[in-house]
């Protein structure tokens, strides 16, 4: 497939989307402090270019699966953000009616296959989605995301081998944000070029500037084309950065404020904003209008989540089996 042109409207969409994702996450953090969101909460701030560039490369039926840093991906695929906020708050209006919480977002309708809390657990699933697409000859490609920490799991290595052996239409995308909780990439292996792990399986692989949506788009488009035309899997290492702590209780002693500030200079939203301004794609007034739309939509999300109810107790039993009269054991 020829590369799509990155036009004015693409930049403007990227800008508005990424700004929305950022503000959505910031609001979620605020709701966490108000104890409306509980448990863990892993924010995507800093990594937005990976998602923006990838989604632009996706075709209608393509699929996506990722780990627990997963609030904004379904939004990018078309899920109503109000439902994501409601899920974060554990409300029936949420994508899983409050069952899944922050780590477990899903949308069958929008080909978003989760939202997975066990590190590395989603990697074979992603190859499995691709296995089905090959089997059923749908022509769809699966984008399978994981963190830099997840590549140290056996599931990653077993899956890379199988995906090559069976020539599956899957793109493995490592979001190397520098850290797995408090552990930097250097401290998890004697190499730091994670993409080279593909070489052992003779899988096409490369590093990508994960702060630049254009670079991400180009790499994912090539990989998806390869998969779609029967060329099998690709491993991409997106070099990006996480601005916030791992979850909400992380003192971040493992890095300096200067390091964070250094990456914020390459902020993907800032980069796109600069292009828009330099190329005069939008006036200051138009940019302000985008900002206020974003703000309003975030507020709508909170309002929707606030107004939605908590699920009633009987919901606990609703979705354990698809069989509707399953005989659960009841104790006191």
């Amino acid at each position, binding site marked *: 497939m020829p590369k799509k042109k990155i036009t004015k409207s693409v930049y403007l969409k990227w800008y508005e989307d990424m700004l929305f994702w950022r503000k959505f996450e910031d609001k979620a953090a605020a709701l966490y402090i108000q104890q409306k969101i*509980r*448990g*863990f909460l892993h924010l995507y701030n800093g990594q937005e270019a990976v998602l923006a560039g990838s989604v632009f490369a996706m075709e209608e039926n393509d699929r996506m699966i990722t780990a627990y840093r997963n609030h904004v991906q379904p939004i990018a695929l078309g899920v109503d953000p109000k439902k994501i906020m409601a899920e974060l708050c*554990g*409300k029936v209006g949420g994508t*899983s009616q*409050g*069952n*899944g*919480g*922050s*780590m*477990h977002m899903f949308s069958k309708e929008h080909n978003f296959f989760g939202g*997975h*809390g*066990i*590190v*590395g*657990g989603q990697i074979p699933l992603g190859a499995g989605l691709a296995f089905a697409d090959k089997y059923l000859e749908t022509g769809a490609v699966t984008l399978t995301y994981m963190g830099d*920490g*997840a590549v*140290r*799991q*056996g*599931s990653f290595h077993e899956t890379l081998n199988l995906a090559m052996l069976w020539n599956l239409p899957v793109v493995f995308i490592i979001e190397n944000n520098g850290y*797995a*909780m*408090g*552990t930097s990439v250097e*401290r*998890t*292996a004697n190499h730091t070029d994670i993409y080279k792990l593909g070489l052992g399986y003779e899988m096409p692989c490369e590093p990508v500037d994960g702060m630049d949506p254009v670079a991400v788009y180009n790499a994912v488009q090539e990989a998806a084309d390869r998969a779609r035309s029967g060329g099998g899997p690709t491993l991409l290492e997106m070099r990006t950065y996480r601005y916030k702590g791992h979850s909400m209780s992380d003192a971040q*002693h*493992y890095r300096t404020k200067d390091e964070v500030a250094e990456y914020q200079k390459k902020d993907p939203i800032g980069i796109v904003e600069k292009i828009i301004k330099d190329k005069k794609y939008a006036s200051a007034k138009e940019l302000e209008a985008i900002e206020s739309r974003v703000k309003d939509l975030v507020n709508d999300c909170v309002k929707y989540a606030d107004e939605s109810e*908590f*699920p*009633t*107790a009987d*919901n*606990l*039993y609703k979705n*354990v089996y698809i069989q509707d009269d399953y005989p*659960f*054991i*009841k*104790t*006191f």
Partner: protein
Amino acid sequence: MGRVIQFREAIAEAMSEEMRRDETIYLMGEEVAEYNGAYKASKGMLDEFGPKRVLDTPIAELGFAGIGVGSAMNGLRPIVEFMTFNFSMVAIDQIINNAAKMFQMSGGQFNVPIVFRGPTASAGQLAATHSQAFESWYANCPGLKVVVPSNPYDAKGLLKSAIRDNDPVIFMESEQMYGDKMEVPEEEYLIPLGKADIRRAGSDVTIVSFGKIIKEADKAAEELAKEGVECEIIDLRTVRPIDYAAVVESLKKTNRMVIVEEAWPLGNISTELITHCQEHAFDYIDAPIIRVNTADTPMAYAPTLVKEFLPNAERIIKAVNKVTYRD
């Protein structure tokens, strides 16, 4: 002389004291060294023992659990921390097939002196993958011992015994207990594995429990005492082996029993105790024994669903009222 310390400090003290005694003991796991433990249960240990003996691992549970077992077959005494036992699922083959069975398969040549430790069960609204109780899973497997302390004093004494034990021990804590405080002696003490503790004496009904959820039994017993019902609370402390004698002795006294366990109901420690009591103390049982367990479902995220899922004091009171025919 006692001083008040937190559960997490009791864990760190037990490991550190044992590591000072025996050079072959080492600790490994995710974030145990430079981060001082995801829940700060190994605080200061990297500083004291250095990176040879306190090792940060990548997220590779299968690999490091197995390396632990192999090193234990070859002269070392590892302590392997799982950030939570939910993540031991990717390593369970190494625990069940290698650690637990090695001594028998090798005809008594290779024992495996290893401790696998970390939090188990739910800890707030963490949803299905991060809220599972694996005590009864591991207790089901011959070759393992399974310890589940409920307070800082027990944790320290039991962990020291677990580290000295020459068989593989699963040692289970709780994120929700690490901050619990208690007076703990400065002097060294050990608590033997396999011995239950009478946490509260009473004559009307026996409540058997273990681990974090026992606090719900405490609350229930307080409430019931106001109504003149005296509960005896037995803390199993170890669920393999189980101190059956302590349970039966109490049952012979009270003739009524409620078991409180945060676990799925099909085939758990509660069902084992009920079986044992009807086999060995049938004539002493005045009312059907009742167990208070979790719902027969994965735990879900919303607070209303968490409440429906977990055992709590209110349910325990209802169960006690039933076995004492007060309902």
